[in-house]
């Protein structure tokens, strides 16, 4: 691309940067084993509380995938003293927003409230965690809602591509090969007794950390935690580790047939690395250059040079075990081959030669500079502290983050790309019109090509 000559003169220079520190936080521990992490931040009269429980989706028993999510969601659907409607009403009359989720590595109940309503909302949070009722009617409703969600997914190309990508990536027995929230087969079979038993085993003070961020003193946070969860008893369950083995070692193409699709949704990637891998920082910077930023190689190539797509990005998903590395984009069906070729070329290129000093400094100065902007809200600070807790990162992790990013060299990036990107193991998932994309991809001779329906069943 020929750019007009640029007169660099007259461009403003930055002034002296002002000091920024990630919010100070304090750790405490209740006698029953509940851990407490408090970051007092006085900006607006708001507090976020995240209760993290070692009850993530990796704890689901084989064949009962979706249990962890159902249990988490059912916490907010009624306690022994309030039914679901009353409970919701009690939270929302306080203006509090509350959400319960089970991610791969933990379940989290997250609350944000104005400071004046925090004590009452915190008490409710304790009630929710300690005395959920799992009323049969709500159990059945939430199962039905999950099934409705799965049904919707069959017509939603983006979600479908994400879900089936994971399925084709991991070995069939891996928890990661099945959706976080469970699928049609597993959700149908889960009953109330299993949910209760999961709750009783996994929801215990020993496996629980309360993260508090916002307009509150540590002592007050401890007092409220004690009031809500101090009398809670139970012994920590054993931590569960997911199997992160890949389904196959060779390249393969998986086409999910969506006749007449207006676009082809592409997912290209393989099993990545765990969050605690020593190469986390070089891999993160490498990914920023490859496809993590708007001005990354993949987006500039596919979107700005070729106009193939509205956007193309790459990412590593960080879990305790190895999550996926994936390049995601949606392109016009008839250039599915060209777009795939460009993505594979960019992956080869970043493995073949060192990135330029300009590219390196763009990525590192972005990650360094944007750091304070990532933590403007109590929710974002609580989420950052949750990452610390979940992955056992050191307390000075955020204080040292920026210097570690700045220290990355182009040699380290080349090494990270060579070590952690695997062109020969790429799984290519396309949700699109098979009458167009199949022939295009087969002609590329990328590997075994299989055609599936939207449930992921192979079709001849």
């Amino acid at each position, binding site marked *: *691309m020929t*750019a007009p000559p*640029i*007169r660099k003169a007259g461009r*403003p*220079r*930055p002034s002296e*940067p*002002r*000091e*920024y520190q990630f919010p100070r936080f304090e750790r405490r521990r209740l006698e029953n084993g509940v851990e407490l992490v408090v970051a007092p931040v006085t900006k*607006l*009269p*708001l507090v976020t509380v995240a209760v993290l429980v070692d009850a993530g989706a990796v704890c689901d028993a084989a064949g009962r995938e979706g249990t962890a999510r159902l249990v988490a969601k059912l916490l*907010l659907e009624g306690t022994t003293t309030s039914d*679901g*409607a009353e409970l*919701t*009403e009690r939270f*929302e*009359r*306080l*203006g509090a*927003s509350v959400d319960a989720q089970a991610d791969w590595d933990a379940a989290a109940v997250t609350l*944000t409230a*104005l400071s004046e309503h925090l004590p009452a909302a915190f008490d409710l949070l304790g009630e929710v965690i300690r005395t959920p009722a799992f009323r049969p009617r709500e159990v059945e*409703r939430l199962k*039905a*809602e999950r099934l*409705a*969600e799965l*049904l*919707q997914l069959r*017509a*939603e*190309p983006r979600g479908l591509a994400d879900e089936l990508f994971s399925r084709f990536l991991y070995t069939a027995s891996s928890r990661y090969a099945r959706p976080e929230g469970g699928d049609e087969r597993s959700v149908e079979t889960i009953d109330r007794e299993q949910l209760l038993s999961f709750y009783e085993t996994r929801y215990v003070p020993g496996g629980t950390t309360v993260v508090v961020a916002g307009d509150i003193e540590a002592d007050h946070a401890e007092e409220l935690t004690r009031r809500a969860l101090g009398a809670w008893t139970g012994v920590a369950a054993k931590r569960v580790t997911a199997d992160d083995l890949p389904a196959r070692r060779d390249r393969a193409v998986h086409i999910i047939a969506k006749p007449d699709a*207006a*676009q082809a*949704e592409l997912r290209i990637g393989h099993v990545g690395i765990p969050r605690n891998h020593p190469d986390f920082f070089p891999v993160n910077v490498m990914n920023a250059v490859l496809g993590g*930023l708007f*001005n990354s190689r993949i987006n500039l190539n596919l979107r*700005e040079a*070729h*106009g*193939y*797509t*509205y956007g193309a990005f790459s990412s590593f998903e960080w879990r305790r075990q190895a999550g996926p590395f994936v390049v995601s984009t*949606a392109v*016009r069906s008839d250039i599915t081959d060209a777009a795939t070729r460009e993505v594979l070329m960019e992956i080869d290129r970043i493995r073949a030669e060192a990135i330029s000093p300009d590219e390196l400094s*763009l990525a590192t*100065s*972005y990650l*360094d*500079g*944007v*750091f*304070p*902007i990532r933590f*403007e*809200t109590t929710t974002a600070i609580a989420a950052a502290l949750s990452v610390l807790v979940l992955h056992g990162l050191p307390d000075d992790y955020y204080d040292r983050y920026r210097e570690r990013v700045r220290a990355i060299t182009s040699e380290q990036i080349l090494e990270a790309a060579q070590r952690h990107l695997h062109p020969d193991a790429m799984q290519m998932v396309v949700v699109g019109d098979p009458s167009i994309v199949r022939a295009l991809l087969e002609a590329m001779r990328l590997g075994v090509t299989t055609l599936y329906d939207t449930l992921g069943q192979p079709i001849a």
Partner: protein
Amino acid sequence: MQIPIVTFRLPNGLFVTLSEDHTAPIVAVNLWYHVGSANERSGRTGFAHLFEHMLFQGSEDVAANEHFELVQRAGGTLNGSTWLERTNYFETLPSNQLELALWLEANRMGKLLPAMTQQKLDTQRDVVMNERRWSMDNQPYGTWMEKLPALCFPQSHPFHHSLIGSMEDLTAASLEDVAQFFATYYTPDNAVLTIAGDFEPGEARQMIERHFGPIPRGTGKPPLPDMTLPPVFGQWKREVVADDIMLPRLFLAFRSPVFGSDDYYAASVCGAALGLRSGSRLRRRLVRERQIAAEASAFTFDLAKGADLLVVDVTARPGIAVEQLEQEVAYELDQVVRDGLLVTEVERAVAVIQTMFVSSMQEAGERADRLSLFATYFGDPHRLNEEVDRYAAVTTERVNEFIRTRLGENNRASLVYVPRDDGPGELVGAGVAAAAQ
């Protein structure tokens, strides 16, 4: 909670709002141009949005995509967006990089055209066409954002046509259109600039004068046609769309008072009472109790000219046919029209809105954007500091008065999505009979 606000206007007409907050070394720069899809001429739908893309393609002193590069290199985040009534551009950066963002915004406001080429236009046209496919055509129910305004606003009304535009019109857009649109609308007197966060006001003002001061005032823009509309549709409008979807979904819209008017706040609270969060009336009744819906929500479009829309959005549970979905939603609404909402329901809605509002004010970018909004629509960013009180002042009587006058059968528009395989034929007949009473 009061946000500090200082305003002034440059001789060329640029309206400036400054709002200091030194809790973190972060600053947000936010620019609203008072032009959106409503200003497009016929045959050029989608142009305002395509033009937004072109603003990232460089200007006299900035190469294509360099705008993104410079801001990201500085550690900033950025984007732009287009709406029916406005287009905005925004950056959040480390506070020592304030001048970079001001310079970049001034450079493209003052000197965009030398950088425009046919090739850039062609590429961005392709990008936008892919954006259309991605966000609408290949997304279940994705066309609702285009079909609902088309159903609710008369053909001649500026809000009627598609914001993202038709493929045909996008193809027709030329470099000359770019030049003309730029000269007409991207002028300092048709824009407001807001800075929020960590900056020194005297310095910021000097920077603004230095970079934006030399840009000449515009020569005026063509007035929008009269956008006034009667308070109600006058009938129950209905359109059925067969789409590649699994579950029927109903968008039920009501014409409602324009954004920012006194009655708007009653409409907004009504929307929250009906469909914001799981304790809202429709979520409780249709999702929790009666289990007819998989999802239910309600919201306002927040249009500041002519008329706004309040929209109830309900997706059927598997096994619930579209006629039943429509009938049940109508039943719930009829009941609300007849009996009104309870005081506790209105209190819940206001409490939830207030917490959301305070939460959103934590981010410099969001504060700047809301200040720009009130500056653009009402020439008065101080309105932001009145939001909490305006919502607190909404009584149940006013919400119920709004419901009585606006939620009746003479002010409904149903946009109904049905799975394509079902074939809409028979279902349409049944639904129309129910709706036409």
